[in-house]
């Protein structure tokens, strides 16, 4: 119980944000405590001002925001944000047939709406979520693949850009989390063989770089299948990233499992609950709550890890951007393009961590 109560007891804040302190006191305490402090503050502030002035100068004042002529950009001393305007479609959608890009836009809208609704506790009820996900899966599938309703068929090898990143990420989490839970349970199982299998699996995959796992998924795995059997490459890659993700996540969940006091198992046993009943209703709900912050970190890491597919030539948003930056006319403005991609990742990463913080609050207040 101590673990849960320590979860609920929020750490005492170092300072009370609502306390009204006078500005001078605050300044003295935080910026000008001593001579050295003040000196440091001045130097840092000077550097900061220079930096922000540079950003303003380069990124706003002298920047070109819209033009179709790269020479206009060349003439400017500031940033060329026009490259993003000009190239946003190949960057965001990769090799997907140009005329069909509207399908990807629609897909992303459906995807984001579905995800946002699913993350909202108010809508956590299966009668809403199950139809929603069936609808989302079917419509996203129809939009991405086509071949129905008069939509042109688009093979997975032509998918790309941000939608691909989203699908890889979603697939990784949806496939990886159950695998992670199973591996974590296996590693804590009363059966030595199950423990052994899980340990070998987890440790050998955690010991190698993701790249080698992608190599296996792309180059070696097909050899493991009987002749004539084929598994879609995109699926193989997704499963590869998912299993890699699961091995790290399993260790996090194991930490949560270890934190559950023995008494919880005993109480469940004395109520005559079976192993799976105990795991499902007593152990996992607590273990997942305990390890939530670490789980979130790995989920965000999984999103970043999707970018590794550049190595095997999948056209995610990063690969697509590097390809776009091949255009000799716009090549010079790679900084702007990569900043844009970085901003996309930062945005989604930040959104995820904000949500995770909200979930922790909900847990603390007993809402979930």
């Amino acid at each position, binding site marked *: 119980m101590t673990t849960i109560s320590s979860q609920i007891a929020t750490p005492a804040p170092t300072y009370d944000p609502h306390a009204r302190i006078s500005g001078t006191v605050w300044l003295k305490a935080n910026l000008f405590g001593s001579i050295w402090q003040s000196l440091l503050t001045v130097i840092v502030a000077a550097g900061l001002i220079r930096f922000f002035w540079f950003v303003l100068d380069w990124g706003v004042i002298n920047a070109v925001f819209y033009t179709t002529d790269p020479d206009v950009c060349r003439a400017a001393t500031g940033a060329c944000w026009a490259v993003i305007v000009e190239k946003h479609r190949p960057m965001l959608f990769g090799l997907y047939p*140009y005329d069909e890009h509207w399908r990807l836009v629609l897909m992303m809208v459906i995807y984001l709406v579905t995800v946002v609704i699913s993350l909202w506790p108010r809508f956590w009820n299966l009668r809403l979520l199950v139809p929603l996900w069936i609808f989302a899966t079917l419509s996203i599938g129809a939009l991405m693949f086509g071949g129905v309703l008069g939509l042109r068929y688009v093979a997975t090898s032509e998918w790309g850009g941000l939608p691909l990143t989203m699908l890889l990420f979603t697939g990784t989490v949806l496939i990886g989390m159950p695998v992670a839970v199973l591996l974590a349970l296996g590693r804590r199982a009363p059966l030595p063989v199950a423990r052994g299998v899980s*340990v070998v699996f987890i440790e*050998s995959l955690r010991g190698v770089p993701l790249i080698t796992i992608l190599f296996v998924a*792309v*180059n070696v795995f097909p050899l493991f299948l009987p002749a004539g059997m084929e598994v879609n490459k995109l699926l193989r890659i997704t499963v590869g990233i998912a299993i890699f993700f699961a091995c790290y996540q399993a260790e996090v969940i194991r930490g949560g499992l270890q934190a559950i006091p023995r008494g919880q198992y005993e109480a469940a046993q004395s109520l005559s609950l079976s192993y799976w009943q105990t795991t499902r209703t007593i152990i996992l709900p607590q273990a997942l709550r305990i390890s939530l912050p670490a789980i979130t970190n790995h989920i965000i890491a999984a999103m970043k890890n999707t970018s590794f597919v550049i190595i095997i*030539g999948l056209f995610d948003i990063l690969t697509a951007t590097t390809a776009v930056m091949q255009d*000799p006319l716009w*090549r010079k403005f790679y900084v702007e393009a990569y900043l844009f991609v970085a901003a996309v990742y930062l945005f989604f990463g930040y959104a995820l961590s904000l949500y995770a913080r909200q979930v922790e609050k909900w847990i603390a207040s007993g809402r979930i």
Partner: protein
Amino acid sequence: MIKTKVVGLSIMASLMLGVAGAPMARAGSGDTLAAVKARGEVLCGVHPARHGFAAPDSLGKWSGFEVDFCHAIAAAVFGDASKVRFVALSSQQRFPAIQSGEVDVLARNVTATLSRDTALGLNFAPPVFYTGTGFLVRKDDGIAKIEDLDGAAICMAPGSTTERNVAQIFAARGLTYTPVVIENNKQLVDAYVTGRCDALTKDKAALPGVRAFDTEDPSAHIMLPGIYSKEPLAMAVRQGDDNWYDLVKWVTYATFNAEELGVSQDNVDEMKNSEDPDVQALLGVIGDNGAKLGVDNGWVYAIVKQVGNYKDIYMRHFGPYSPVALDRDQNALWTEGGLLYGFPMQ
């Protein structure tokens, strides 16, 4: 935990060694042609972006010299050249992809060599394109011959025959160089264009495409004259499936022979009425060439009608008005001093 890690390690090691040390045995062959027919399309492994040979346009439609040979196979099998699915393969992925059956045929700038024929378990159809190692350099560096590249940084793709050829070319002349080896083609070209390397080396035939499409000012780059190695590019299939190999081989010959017999995309319908027995056999008016290969007797007609003969294909992508203009040189028929020699189709 350490103990378990070590155990895991040794288990994995023994697995890997077990796979590798397995005895070799010849097993029955798969039937690719039947599989292709059942699937309704040919899976063709192509280069992700090599102008002139294979590249998707901005609408995602593939075009190029090798792409057309994929279409030719589809035309032969289905009578419909469009029944192809293109699988873009990096140089690293190409051999595992054909070995594992991810693609039916590799039309991806593969140089036919002995070790690839044997150790990789490939079978090579007749070369469709003869080329050699070429070097793209900046004009204002004042490089005129290979000796001028002494000490240069040279960009190249890993695992290509080029990588080995350059090592030999330089070693034979007592020259040194620094290889910059990058798998991702975009990154590779980028490294040359931005000036990381003094030279970009690829198959000679691939360099004009880079110059035309990837450099800011194509006229600022030149290709070194001379041919430094043999690079016969050929379509490759898996070993152990002779029927499929035969088909790919004869599709190649058919394009040669059609050109030799003067059967082109423009005149193929008229030529169907030709009195020449060779033309008649070629176009399936007489004989049963198609049946012997397991396809429709009008297979060559379909190829020429929908894709063209060798010359049609060549001119479409390397003709004088294409961005990647290339002289035919060795890639002319034997009758015109080139190396293309189609076996008789009797």
